[in-house]
C-alpha cells in the first residue's frame, strides 16, 4: 500500500518545463513539416497554463496533424476521422474538471467533421480546438481539402478543383463560436500567445493555425511567413491597437463604411488616429466578420490574432448547473426512489 503512495506523482510540487510535456514516442511527421512547430509551441506554452498535466487531454481525429496526442505527455486519444470534437464534447460534459484540447486538420475538422464543429461552436462546449490548416489532405497523400483554393491542382483535381474553399473563421462566426483566432506555424511567439489565450478562454476556443505541408502543399503560406514578404502580407490584430502592417509599419487599415481600406501612413494626410482600432471583445460580431473576409479581398493582408472573443455560459456549465439545481430541489435520487416511483401497488 505504501508503494502506491510513493509512485503517485504529486504535480503540485512540480514546476513544469516544456520537456515535461514531451511523450516518449518518436515524432513521425515528415522532416520539415509545420506540425513540429505547433508541437513545440504547445509544449513551450503548457507549463505556463498552470494546469496539472494529468488533467489535460488531447483528442484528435485522423490525419497527419491528428497524430499530435501521441507526442504530448498528457492523456491523449487519437480517435476516428472527423469525430474528435464530438468525443471531446462527451469527455468534457462528463468530466468538466479536465482541460480538453483538440488537434485536428482541415479535412478532419471541416470536411468530414464539419457538423460536429459547427455544433460544438453553437453549444459553446468548453474545448480548445487547434486546426492545423495546411489546405490539403496530408495523410492520404495530397488531395484538395475544403480549404484549398479554387483551381488547385492535386491528385484528385488534375485539372484544378472546382470547389470554393471555406473561410474557417467566418464559418466559426456563422456558428457563433465565442473565441476565434488565427496564427502561423512559423511565428512561434505569436502562436504561443494564441495558445495561451485559447487556454484562458471559457467556452469553445477556435484557433486556426496555418501550417505548411512541405510534401504536398509546400509554400502555401510562404507569402505570410517568408521574412521578405511577411510584413506586407500579414496584419497582426492586437487588442486596443490600430491595424498596422508593412515592413516599416507604414500601412494602416481604416474602415470606410463597411469597407476596409489600406492607407499609406507616410502620407501626412493620413493619421494613425483614423485607423481601425482592434477590439477583441467587441460586442458586435460585425468587425470580426469583416476581418474574416480580408483573405478574400485582393490586396488585403491576412489577419492573425484574435478575431473576437466573448463570454457566455458554456454548455458544460449549463448541464452541470441544471443537475445541481434539480438535485437541490428534488433531493439526490436513490435506487429506492427510482424504482418505487408513482403508480405502484402491493400484492400480499
Amino acid at each position, binding site marked *: 500500500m505504501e508503494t502506491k503512495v510513493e509512485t503517485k506523482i504529486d504535480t503540485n510540487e512540480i514546476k513544469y518545463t516544456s520537456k515535461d510535456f514531451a511523450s516518449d514516442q518518436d515524432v513521425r511527421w515528415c522532416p520539415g513539416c509545420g506540425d513540429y512547430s505547433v508541437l513545440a509551441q504547445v509544449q513551450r506554452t503548457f507549463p505556463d497554463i498552470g494546469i496539472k498535466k494529468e488533467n489535460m487531454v488531447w483528442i484528435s481525429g485522423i490525419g497527419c496533424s491528428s497524430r499530435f496526442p501521441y507526442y504530448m505527455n498528457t492523456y491523449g486519444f487519437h480517435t476516428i476521422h472527423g469525430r474528435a470534437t464530438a468525443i471531446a464534447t462527451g469527455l468534457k*460534459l462528463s468530466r468538466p474538471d479536465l482541460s480538453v484540447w483538440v488537434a485536428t486538420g482541415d479535412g478532419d475538422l471541416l470536411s468530414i467533421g464539419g*457538423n460536429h464543429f459547427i455544433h460544438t461552436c453553437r453549444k459553446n462546449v468548453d474545448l480548445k480546438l487547434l486546426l492545423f490548416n495546411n489546405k490539403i489532405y496530408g495523410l492520404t497523400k495530397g488531395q484538395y481539402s475544403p480549404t484549398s483554393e479554387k483551381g488547385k491542382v492535386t491528385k484528385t483535381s488534375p485539372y484544378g478543383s472546382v470547389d470554393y474553399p471555406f473561410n474557417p473563421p467566418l464559418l466559426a462566426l456563422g456558428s457563433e463560436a465565442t473565441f476565434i483566432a488565427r496564427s502561423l506555424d512559423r511565428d512561434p511567439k505569436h502562436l504561443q500567445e494564441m495558445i495561451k489565450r485559447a487556454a484562458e478562454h471559457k467556452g469553445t476556443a477556435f484557433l486556426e493555425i496555418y501550417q505548411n505541408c512541405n510534401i504536398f502543399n509546400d509554400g502555401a503560406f510562404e507569402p505570410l511567413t517568408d521574412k521578405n514578404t511577411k510584413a506586407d502580407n500579414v496584419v497582426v490584430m492586437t487588442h486596443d491597437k490600430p491595424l498596422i502592417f508593412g515592413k516599416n509599419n507604414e500601412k494602416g487599415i481604416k474602415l470606410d463604411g463597411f469597407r476596409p481600406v489600406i492607407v499609406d501612413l507616410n502620407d501626412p494626410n493620413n493619421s494613425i488616429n483614423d485607423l481601425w482600432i482592434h477590439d477583441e471583445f467587441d460586442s458586435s460580431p460585425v468587425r470580426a466578420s469583416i476581418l474574416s473576409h480580408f483573405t478574400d479581398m485582393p490586396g488585403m493582408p491576412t489577419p492573425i490574432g484574435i478575431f473576437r472573443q466573448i463570454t457566455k455560459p458554456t454548455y458544460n456549465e449549463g448541464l452541470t448547473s441544471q443537475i445541481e439545481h434539480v438535485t437541490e430541489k428534488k433531493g439526490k435520487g436513490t435506487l429506492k426512489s*427510482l424504482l418505487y*416511483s408513482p403508480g405502484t*401497488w402491493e400484492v400480499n
Partner: protein
Amino acid sequence: MREEKILEKELQNLKEVTIRFAGDSGDGMQLTGSQFSDTTALFGNDLGTLPDYPAEIRAPAGTLYGVSGFQVHFSSADIYTPGDTPDVLVAMNPAALKINIKDLKLGGTIIVNTDSFDSKNLGLAKYESNPLEDEALLSNYKVYPVAITTLNATALKDSPLSNKDINRCKNFFALGLMYWIFNRPIEPTVKWIYEKFGKKQDIAEANEKALKTGYYYGETTETFTTRYSVEPASLPKGVYRNIAGNEAIALGFVAASIKSGLPLFLGSYPITPATDILQYLSSYKNFGVKTFQAEDEIAGITSAIGASYGGSLAITTTSGPGMALKTEAMGLAVMTELPLVIINIQRGGPSTGLPTKTEQADLFQAIYGRNGEAPIPVIAASTPSDCFFTALEAAKIALKYMTPVILLSDGYIANGSEPWRIPDPDSIPEIPVSYRTEAEGFFPYLRDENLSRPWAVPGTPGLEHRIGGLEKANITGNVSYDPDNHEFMVRLRAAKVQKIQQDVPDLAISHEQEGELLVLGWGGTYGAITEAVMKARAEGHKVSQAHLKHLFPFPKNLSDVLNSFKNVLIPELNLGQLAKVLRSELLIDTISLTKIKGLPFKSSEIQNKIVEILGGNNGN
C-alpha cells in the same frame, strides 16, 4: 341507489380478456389504452399491452392510415402476450372498425361510436355502405352502438371549454364505459387526470366528468346487461408497477450507475422507437444522469465514447438507421477497449422501413456488421420488465470486460408494458468497478485474468498515456504495425469476448430436458412462445422451451441443449437470422418460423407450427 342498480345487472366472471381500443391518431387511443392498463395493473391483473400507431403524427381525421390502436390483454392468471385476437373492440370511427375488425374474435364484442359513422367518415374509411347496418357484422359479433360524441358533448355542455376541446374528452367517456363493463375502479384515472392537468382546471374537470359519464352510462343504460369481472391474478407477493420496456431500460441503467458508483452518461439522437429512453433519462437529473441530445447518431455514440474514456458508465440508444451510422465508432470502441453499451430498439427495416413497427432483423448487423474483426458481445431483452435486468447485465459485461456491448430490444417490448414486481433495491448486486490508479507496473494494454485492460481515466496522476484506433501493441498499447502483433491482438480481442462465456449462465430448458421439439427464441418473442408452448402442452404435446439472452457469445451448453432435441423450432421476426447464426456457429440445423409483418407473433401462429411439427405425434 347506485349499488342496487349494479346488482340488477349480471356479473360474469372471465379468466382473461383482450380489448383493443382503436380510433384516429387524434382520438387519444394510446392514452386511453395506457390508462386502462395502469388501472388494470393496479387492480391486480396480470397484463400485456401492444400499442400500434402510424408513422404520421396525426394523419387527417378519418383516414385508414390514420388509425391508432392499443391492445391490452389482462387475466387472473399469468399471461405473456397482449393477446392474439381481441375479445372486445372499441372503434371510435369507421376507419378504426375497418382496420381492426379482421383481427377480432368471431362472436366478439364491438363498441362503436355511432356519431362518427356519417357519410364523410364512411367514405374516408372506404365503406360503401354503413357496416353497422350490415347483417353479417351484426350476426357475427355483438355490436353495441353508442353515440359517444353526442353523449359526451351533452354531459359537458356547461363546460367553459371550446367545442373542439370538449370533443377531445370523448376518449375518457369511452374509457369510463369500459371501466364499468370490466368492473374496474375509476379513481386511479381521476387521480391521474388531476396530476396531469392540475394547472388546467377546466380540462381536468371536463375529463373527469367525461369519464364518470361514460361509467354511469354503462350502469344506467339498458344497452349493457352484463358486466364482466376478471379477478386479480395470484401474483407473487410484492410491490408492483406497470412498466414498458424502454422505461425499464432507463431504470436499469440508472440502477447500474448506482450499483457501480459510476456517473451515467447517455449520448443519443432521437429516433423511434428508442427516443423514450432519452426522454426518461433526461428527467433523472437528480440521479446525476447526464443526457446529451447530440446532433446525430455519430455524435451520440462518439460523445459516449468520450465519456467512457473519462470514466462514466456510457451508453447510446438508437434504432436501425442510427445503428448503421454508429458502425464506425463501434470499431473504435473495440480497438480502444472502452466500456460502452449500444442499445438498439429494433424496428421494421430495411432503411426507414416501418419506423413505428416491431421487427428482429438487426441481429446479423449486431453480430457481424462491422469492418474488420470487431467482436462485440450481444444480448437481448425478452419482455418489458426483462429490459431492466438486461440493462444491468449489459453494464456489468461492459465494465468487467472493458468492451462495447450491444443490447437488442424491439419496438414491441419497448412500448408494450406488463406488471413488474419491483425488486428489492438491496437484492440487486453491486457492480464492482475500479479505475486504475497505481502508476507502478501500469501499461494501458496489460490484461487481468479476464483479459481486460485497465481503465486509467484522465485526471489520474502518473498514468498519462495515449490510446487510439490504430492497431495497438500488446501490453504497451503503442501504435504497432508489426504483423505478428496484429494477428496476436486480433485473436486476443476475439478471445476476450469469447471469455465472457464464463459468466453466461447455462441455457435453461423449460419442461422436458430432451425430446422431440424445443422451441428456441430470443428477444421479444418470449411471451408468444411461452404462451404457445403452454397451450400446446395443455393439448398434450410434449414440447420444451428455451430463450436466449446471450446471442454472442452463446451459453456454453447451447450446443448440448440443441442436440438434446430431435427438432428445434426458432420463431423469429426476420428471415431466420438466429437460425443462420446457429448453423454458422454450431453447425446445427433448425426449423425456422419467420414473420416480417411489423407485428409480434400471435401465440397461435407458433402453436400451430408446433402442432404441425409434432404432427399427430404428441412427443410421447
